[in-house]
């Protein structure tokens, strides 16, 4: 006689499986984004408005250097994290994406697209009337970071909550 899985808890069914490799990768990416670009925007937030809202001499190189450091920190965290999760579950890392992985990737990219579009509309069509200089550049970068966080957040939520669209 067959028994139905409705009698079985999700924890019991998932006991053999563990956390999906792609969810772990998303957590690593979130950590890299938050530490790297969180640090960048924390520094930016402390700058005086006349600097961030204008274009003082030498600022291009300073902000570019700061952004480069933030990107390197992000890449280091992602590289080390990816190596660690590959070492802990090499078979999962080698497995190709299946239909659920592709559905989650598609849904997360679709959500991130709308976040990015909203950000770009605000940056490109609204901010020029209210701000200038580096404020616009940093707002565009912030929109990209938020869109990426939305993508990784959706991936994590989908794997943990069974939300695939």
């Amino acid at each position, binding site marked *: 006689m067959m028994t*139905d899985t409705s009698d079985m808890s*999700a924890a019991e069914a998932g006991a*053999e499986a563990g956390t999906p490799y792609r969810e772990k990768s998303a957590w690593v990416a979130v950590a890299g984004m938050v530490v790297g670009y969180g640090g960048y925007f924390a520094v930016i937030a402390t700058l005086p408005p006349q600097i961030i809202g204008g274009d003082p001499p030498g600022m291009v190189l300073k902000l570019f250097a700061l952004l480069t450091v933030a990107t390197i920190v992000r890449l280091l965290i992602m590289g080390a994290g990816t190596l660690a999760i590959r070492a802990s579950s090499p078979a999962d890392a080698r497995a190709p994406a299946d239909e*659920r992985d592709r559905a989650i990737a598609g849904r997360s990219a679709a959500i991130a697209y709308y976040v990015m579009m909203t950000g770009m509309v605000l940056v490109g069509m609204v901010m020029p009337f209210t701000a200038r200089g580096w404020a616009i550049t940093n707002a565009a970068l912030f929109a990209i970071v938020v869109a990426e966080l939305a993508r990784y957040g959706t991936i994590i939520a989908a794997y943990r909550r069974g939300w695939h669209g």
Partner: protein
Amino acid sequence: MAKLPIANNIRTLRFMAGEMTQADLGTRIGMTRQTIAAIEAGKYSPTLEAAFRIAQVFGKTLDEVFQWEG
């Protein structure tokens, strides 16, 4: 999370197939073991093609593996 309206007997069928693991079943139908676990837990409804592949592994018809509960 709202419960999906499709129940299944995959856990039982794996047991009856000599304690086949989720990884074994996943390998045979081209899915990860985490996806098999999600299907068993009712967190993911497979595509029709994947559902037929799962039924084929156990030598069952589709409605012997999956049941509509909507």
